[in-house]
């Protein structure tokens, strides 16, 4: 299934440039639900797949953007390695390009870094149809602006990611999940206290009645830590984190609006109606609510964080936290710097981008 479609993707973009036709970039479409609806012609990247280089002893992997996450993870697992940011797949065929464009990271994120943290370099097509390379396959690189990390989370509005080089990490020898019954106030305090102590944590979530803590390390270390840390061993620990990551946990099995709220981890519980699920030790909060989007955006902002409507519909079509004017202007000028004709995923991220 590996194929190099970069030339035909370049042609597709070049033709769009000539005719001024906007393009929707689609990996496999698993994350279509996320963001604002985009329009027009489609440029598919799913066929542009394959692992180009993988050096386990360099901790670096370079792949084409259409490579399925699941394929990447099996290649890494053969050498005892993983993507540190534990990306949600949200669909069997999820591609790396779509994952990076959305900037999604899973439960391990506060402890091992995010998708953008792992980004080392990329090849992209900009809105003029030029194929450009930034960053590289080395851990440290400060030559030129960090365009690679800028691509992460840009929802494909700045360019098509053709290839990406990522930092990978060793899989822990052992992981153990333990649970504690706690009220919400106790849970937020406890989770933040643990994070300020040197426990080898790699996951910390709260489902409304129980804290789930994942400990990682060598066999000996995990055993020793468990003796001091305590808690009830959760036999289905791996399944718990997978279901949380993939939103298959029962919390997510409901219709209605699902909000993602990101804020400082110790922020007290927000005063919004609905049901909550806490990940990232309190820094990522999922909320099921019928509250008007205006209220959610306002509450998130007042708490110093930001909200996005992950699934569902908002009355006014807004999905992402509105930007203050100064930032809005910078976004618009950056968009023009990469995509002067406004071809890529128009309005997918913000109405006017």
């Amino acid at each position, binding site marked *: 299934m590996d194929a190099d479609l970069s030339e035909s993707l370049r042609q597709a973009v070049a033709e769009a440039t000539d005719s001024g036709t906007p393009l929707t970039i689609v990996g496999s479409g698993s994350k279509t639900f996320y963001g604002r609806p985009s329009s027009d012609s489609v440029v598919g990247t799913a066929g542009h797949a394959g692992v180009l280089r993988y050096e*386990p*002893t*360099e901790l670096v992997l370079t792949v084409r953007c259409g490579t399925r996450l699941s394929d990447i993870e099996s290649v890494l697992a053969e050498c005892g390695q993983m993507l540190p940011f534990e990306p949600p797949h949200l669909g069997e065929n999820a591609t790396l390009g779509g994952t990076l464009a959305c900037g999604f990271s899973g439960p391990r994120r506060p402890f091992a870094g995010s998708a953008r943290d792992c980004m080392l370099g990329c090849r992209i097509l900009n809105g003029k149809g030029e194929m450009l390379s930034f960053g590289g396959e*080395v*851990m440290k690189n400060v030559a030129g602006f*960090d365009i690679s990390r800028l691509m992460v989370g840009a929802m494909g509005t700045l360019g098509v990611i053709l290839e990406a080089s990522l930092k990978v990490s060793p899989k822990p020898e052992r992981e153990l999940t333990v649970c504690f019954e706690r009220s919400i106030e106790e849970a937020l305090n406890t989770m933040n206290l643990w994070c300020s102590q040197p426990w080898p944590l790699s996951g910390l979530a709260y489902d409304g009645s129980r804290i789930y803590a994942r400990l990682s390390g*060598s066999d000996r270390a995990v055993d020793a830590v468990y003796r001091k840390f305590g808690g009830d061993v959760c036999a289905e620990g791996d399944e718990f984190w997978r279901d949380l990551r993939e939103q298959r946990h029962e919390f997510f099995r409901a219709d209605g609006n699902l909000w993602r709220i*990101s804020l400082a981890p110790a922020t007290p519980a927000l005063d919004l109606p609905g049901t909550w699920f806490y990940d990232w030790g309190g820094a990522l909060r999922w909320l099921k609510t019928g509250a008007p989007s205006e209220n959610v955006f306002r509450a998130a902002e007042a708490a110093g964080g930001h909200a996005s409507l992950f699934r569902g519909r908002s009355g006014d079509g807004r999905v992402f936290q509105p930007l203050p004017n*100064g930032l809005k202007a910078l976004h618009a000028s950056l968009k023009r710097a990469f995509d002067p004709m406004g071809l890529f995923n128009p309005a997918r991220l*913000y109405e006017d981008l």
Partner: protein
Amino acid sequence: MTYRVHPSERIAHRVDRNHFLCLLSEHIERGRLLFDTEDLRPYECDGLSAYRELPWIVALPETIEEVQAVVRLCREHGVPVVARGAGTGLSGGALPIANGVLLSLAKFNRIIEIDRANRTARVQPGVRNLAISEAAAPYGLYYAPDPSSQIACTIGGNVAENSGGVHCLKYGLTVHNVLQVRVVTMDGELVVLGGSGYDSPGYDLLALITGSEGLLGVIVEITVKLLPIPPCAQVLLASFDSVEEAGGAVAAIIGAGLLPAGLEMMDNITIRVVEDFVHAGYPTGAAAIVLCEFDGIAEQVESDLLKAREIFRAEGATEVRQSTSEAERKTFWAGRKAAFPAAGRISPDYYCMDGTIPRKRLPEVLRRISELSAQYGLVVGNVFHAGDGNLHPLILYDANNPGELERVEELGGKILEACVEVGGTITGEHGVGIEKINQMCVQFRAAELAQFHSVKAAFDPAGLLNPGKAIPTLHRCAEFGAMHVHRGQIAHPDLERF
């Protein structure tokens, strides 16, 4: 001196200095505006002291409003501005512009808040790197990135350079440890990049500004992540008869799934120079030594050390020592940390390079360096952040010998080009500044450089912030390309030669 401001990078203006000082003094008291040659002298260079230029005016603002006022006036009058932290940069990033304002952030030296519950520190940009860890220590927390210059360099400079330290293999670079910055853009607006949590809406401008070498905005406040201080740290010192074996051992450590907090290597020249200076007990007969530190909870450190010792033996280490006390751990590191001053002791001058390479290409790059060293008749020692492939060749020379600095620079350029050839980069952590601006033409093609320029223009349309640094103009590259052939092709054939 091979660096010259290229005509295409010069910002011309005809503003009278006294008139501009008057305008500035409406916003900043006179005492914090410097213009006498004597007062300007301390600002004429950064850590790359071979290049010097007196600034037109130095401004020492104390508040964000004052920074905004300076920047607005500069924009209105087309005057270039260069931000400066502690001036420890090694690539000439803070080198003043002869007709520009040097904006020193030295007075922004307050730690605004340590937020214990959220494990963050909110600080002004002129706060020294080490001061953050010192302020956080009472809470059992610290700021992880630890450049060797950490007692002097500022956090603002660290963000602008995306600085690293010996612990960044495990704990990341500056970009991985900053949560939010406040930036004054060239139009005088104050914008907040990043969030109070782990991400923010829209584009990742925080990542973009990190490492942007003062070209996109003036950083006026920074919130960094703090980590719990590891309860236990121990280091191994392994000696090898060849750099190939040492390199192999480093790869084997990583391949085995170990994640050392620090993984450093030194070649024989450096070992001898350093041992002479600090008497750390380094084996002066070894072709290379590797320092490998683990930190965390005691049980984890013990199992990692055990594995690592076995690997070093299997990879041919002639000797493996383990620190038995905190004092001994510090001694093992003292040599590594003293590598630069030690070089300064045996040689009148030294020049520190900063390439990064895929680690497995190390032996071939070191071979190339020693060939070049022989060819140019200059001694080169090598220290290597082996864990992340960041090589610091130290070229020893004497600037008083006529023509020697030029030879050093040419050799340095050749070393960087060798790094690019094996798939590496011209700078891992010190930045491009003016020093490597010509090598940028080797690493990037015209369309990529043009993309950098349009990103720059999105923030600073008139190009007033730190002009002539970090991103070369295509005209500069055309000229440089006339002397250099890039991967068998003349670079920028589309541009006229001068």
